């Protein structure tokens, strides 16, 4: 398995120029077979879906909670529906997609376990990325300063964050075992969302990875 580490803060989702593909998106796109069927859960403004469509020839669909996000996606010609990962995944039949992607969203769901179970039921593969709550800066904020962390990756204060289910990379690996998801690839991302491919023990990733990205399949 690969691990990357970073000591500098990563860029938040919004400060990237619209035409510039985000590195974590490029990493995810690299995991997806060209021409496959993809469901992006929590697809935001559709930039990952558009990237997958334009560069990988993917037949993509999206679900997005915010009305503004959906409108932007539809104006881009993307097949995105307004919906909620917590309630709407149950309506999708088994094996209806090759990949179900949950990018930077699992920590904002009410029932991450159920969502993950649906993902590996609906898709042959699942791709999940999330901010690592085990990152050293988070531990420093909590452990040394005694405050809930506010970082570039997690910019909202505790009382207004949509992120209600933070986990560390190790926590997530544990959940994957519980729901019977097999890990095919895992990456820890550095500052710019770039995976750094060297061999490191688990504790190292969990401490220095700002984001985790996992490619899973039904076990």
């Amino acid at each position, binding site marked *: 398995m690969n691990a990357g580490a970073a000591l500098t803060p990563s860029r938040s989702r919004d400060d990237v120029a619209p035409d510039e593909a985000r590195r974590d998106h490029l990493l995810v796109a690299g995991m997806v077979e060209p021409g496959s069927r993809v469901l992006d859960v929590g697809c935001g403004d559709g930039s990952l879906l558009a990237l997958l469509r334009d560069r990988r020839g993917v037949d993509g669909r999206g679900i997005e909670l915010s009305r503004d996000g959906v409108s932007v996606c539809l104006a881009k010609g993307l*097949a995105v529906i*307004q919906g909620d990962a917590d309630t709407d995944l149950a309506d999708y039949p088994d094996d209806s997609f090759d990949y179900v992607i949950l990018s930077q969203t699992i920590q904002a769901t009410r029932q991450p376990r159920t969502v993950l179970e649906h993902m590996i039921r609906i898709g042959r593969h699942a791709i999940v990325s999330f901010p690592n709550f085990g990152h050293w800066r988070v531990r420093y904020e909590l452990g040394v300063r005694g405050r809930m962390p506010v970082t570039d990756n997690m910019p909202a204060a505790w009382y207004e964050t949509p992120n209600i289910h933070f986990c560390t990379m190790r926590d997530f690996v544990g959940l994957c075992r519980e729901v019977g998801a097999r890990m095919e690839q895992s990456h820890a991302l550095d500052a710019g969302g770039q995976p750094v491919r060297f061999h490191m023990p688990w504790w190292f990733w969990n401490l220095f990875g700002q984001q985790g990205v996992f490619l899973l399949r039904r076990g």
Partner: protein
Amino acid sequence: MNDLAFSVPSAVPPVDLPRRSEAETPSSPVERFGADAPLRLDAGIDLGPWQIAYQSYGRLNADRTNAILICHALTGDQHVANPNPLTGKPGWWETLVGPGKPIDTDRFFVVCTNVIGGCMGTTGPASMNPATGRAWALDFPLVTIRDMVRSQAMLMDRLGIERLFCVVGGSMGGMQVLQWAASYPERVFAAMPIASGARHSAQNIAFHEVGRQAVMADPDWRAGRYLDEGARPRKGLAVARMGAHITYLSEGALHRKFGRTFQDREAPTFTFDADFQIESYLRYQGISFVERFDPNSYLYVTRAMDYFDLAADYGGVLAGAFRNSPARFCVISFTSDWLFPTRESRAVVHALNAGGAKVGFVEVESDKGHDAFLLDEPEMFAAARGFLDSAASELGLG
């Protein structure tokens, strides 16, 4: 004043003449089908001869692949983007349809038909029954949404359009869009149902029933024979329209637009005159509707909507209706629409997802109620434009 709806004479004024001639010889193109090419109705009757009036805009390309069919709502007609021949008002969807508009008549060949059972040139209860030489009136068979779609498909055959690039419609028009995708999956490349649903709800049937009873309670309805007898159930139809019009708006929009404002007066008159602006507005809506719409058509077309329940035709499973549809869909609803609330659109989206169809869906924020689909709603326009552009590039349309 605005109380006219309740004091109009029942004798037929000259304004009826253009309306009756629109029913028989419309000022738009019309295709006529003889008794040898009847329209097979769900009621089990072969209707023939019959005719379908339509309007078109833009040019059909050499491959005949750029046609968009627009389906109108309950009281709409084929005059989408040209002045209405009866009222002189702009076309009912000129916000969306025209050169450079989201439904761009510079790129697409846009067709809109008057529905079967209507009164603007497609055969309906105001048309002449060839067997009697009089208006059909209630001898006209009951029609359904599927009959409307079947008649449109026969027109498309005549026009040489094998597959429609897109079928678009709001409200009852959206019902036709869904029926098209279910009945003729191979003939629909893209579909855009707006402010609509896959069935008419009990509440909506209830409102329609009130409207029909208002028409039939008017003594000038004459058991449907008013055209023969030179009468016209104006009051009944006006009341039906007033009631229906409330369902097209929202409490918020009514409050914003009218509040409790008085009409041309400072204080209540202590009469049943239209003291409030909202009363005056509704009376105006009622009376102007009467001048352009046939009362029996109102009965038939509302009935067609009531009968619509797409899932029922597929063993109660809506997903079954779309099982064979290769079309991509764009479903749009509005937050304040309580006639076709978002959950009705969502049920369609769920059924499409269950079938693996390619579907986009947005609930547009608006306080304008059901009528929002006819109004200036930039989010709806952006979604429609994005959807049509991407579908057009998928199909290789320039």
